[in-house]
């Protein structure tokens, strides 16, 4: 956990409302694990006041990359940053995916919905380096919500995709696509990130088939490092339910521990 007040933007990509920024920060890159996040100061002024959390999309020796969608003022300001601008960032923060060398030779499903695909790219690289097979399930509202499709394809991942409107790939939710594919094969493990309802559905599928699954949760955060108690989620701990800080004990949790929100099943 370090603060880098001047992480230089060395690359920026844009697909309609989606952006990626590659930030030069060797100290954060050296520590970054897949599933961890950074807190980015989006304004030097007091509006918006707080930093914004972004999961780490990829890393190299000297850089960490974030991938985001414009969803409000913070991400809009961030999308206006240009290469050579500097950003004040904190990281790497939180606990990432439990994905180690023990997954060698395993068949792993990565399920991402919308901007929730962000941490799964970093994870796919990691899994490949460990000799695991990562299959990618990528869903969006429409074809323009699948900006990273080509990136996964180009790198030769087994990629399955869906759109809610059927403009590309399987028509329907990525959870339905995933369920269909599970009639043909059974992954050894599932990692997922996306909208709440999508993750809840994936979690139910995983529990039904008894496949270990981990989920990266999203939350508004005050600080990102455990000081404000603002980003809590209902989590099972020792047979009890507790409000647990997503920034500190997450953002990645086991599907068996997450209490999903009621409704919309």
């Amino acid at each position, binding site marked *: 956990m370090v*603060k880098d007040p001047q992480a230089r933007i060395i690359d920026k990509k844009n697909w309609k409302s989606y952006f990626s920024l590659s930030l030069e920060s060797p100290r954060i890159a050296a520590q970054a694990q897949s599933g961890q996040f950074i807190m980015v100061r989006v304004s030097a002024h007091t509006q918006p006041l707080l930093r914004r959390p972004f999961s780490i999309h990829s890393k190299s020796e000297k850089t960490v990359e974030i991938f985001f969608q414009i969803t409000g003022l913070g991400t809009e300001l961030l999308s206006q940053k240009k290469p050579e601008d500097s950003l004040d960032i904190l990281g790497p923060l939180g606990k990432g995916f439990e994905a180690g060398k023990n997954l060698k030779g395993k068949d792993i499903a990565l399920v991402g919905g919308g901007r929730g695909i962000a941490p799964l790219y970093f994870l796919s690289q990691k899994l490949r380096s460990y000799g695991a097979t990562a299959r990618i399930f990528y869903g969006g509202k429409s074809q323009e919500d699948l900006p990273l499709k080509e990136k996964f394809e180009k790198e030769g991942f087994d990629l399955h995709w869906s759109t809610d409107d059927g403009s590309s790939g399987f028509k329907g939710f990525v959870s339905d696509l995933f369920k269909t594919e599970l009639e043909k094969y059974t992954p050894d493990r599932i990692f997922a990130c996306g909208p709440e309802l999508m993750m809840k559905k994936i979690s139910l599928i995983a529990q039904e088939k008894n496949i270990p699954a981990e989920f990266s949760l999203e939350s508004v955060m005050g600080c990102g490092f455990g000081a404000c108690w603002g980003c809590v989620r209902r989590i099972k701990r020792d047979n009890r339910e507790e409000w647990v800080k997503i920034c500190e004990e997450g953002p990645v949790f086991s599907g068996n521990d997450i209490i999903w929100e009621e409704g919309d099943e």
Partner: protein
Amino acid sequence: MTDLSVDLGFLKLKNPVIGASGTFGYGLEFEPYIDLNRLGGFVVKGLYFSPREGNPPPRLVETPSGLINAIGLPGIGVKRFSEEILPRLQKFNTTVIVNVCGENNEEYASVVEFLDKYDGIAAYELNISCPNVEQDGLCPALSPEATFSAVSLVKKTSSRPIIAKLSPNVTDVVQIALSAEEAGADALSLVNTFLAMAVDIETRKPKLSNIYGGLSGPAIKPIALRMTHQVAGRVKIPVIGMGGILTGQDALEYMIAGAKAVEVGTANFIDPESTVKIIEELREYCQKKGIDRIETLIGTLQA
């Protein structure tokens, strides 16, 4: 060499900058970012006697230059604090203040009674002003009588100095301050957050699960500063000012208006190095102005 130390009478601080309760965790959360030994002190997250869960999310909402929180004082309780946290805080050469909470006067007293057995705590900040634990933001600091009875009972129980933390959600903060002073408070800290709300116009629901929360950040600074000035001019005990302090300049405004020390809150979320930066900015100001001792600046507001 500028002397940044300030003397509260019952407690000498190496500088006037204190991390504010509820924004500074148990202190240890900031260890990766700053040297805690450099701080004037910090106030740990409010402690009830037993562990507490706090409110359901959403607990936070940003507003222009501000933050409304309805965290609801979750915490580990005094036992775990004394076993797991306090021994680690004792290693630091800074002032540790514990923010004391209670659902009633007896609980405030029992927290203090329990913690009195342990070393490494310089004072208690009595949290009689959290707006997020009872309906409509009710708390003792809204009434002079309830303030008097809470402060006097805790003062009788405690072997350590008591700082009463006041609420801004009152008609006349001076009246409450005088009650706390009369009840035996050794110092006052003000202000806690302003009772506030925000509405989602799409769903027409409140943006906080608790409906109301407490507003902090730069948005409240001018009002909090005015209240600090009013109180500092009327009480004899030291006043610790807080509300929206982000920079050395903000801290200086409070000190010139009469605060002997300041607490830095929301700024810690934006930049975990804020407290240390503010100390440096105070030093630079003093050097530039030829001020040898920062204490000589306190309450020097010109007519």
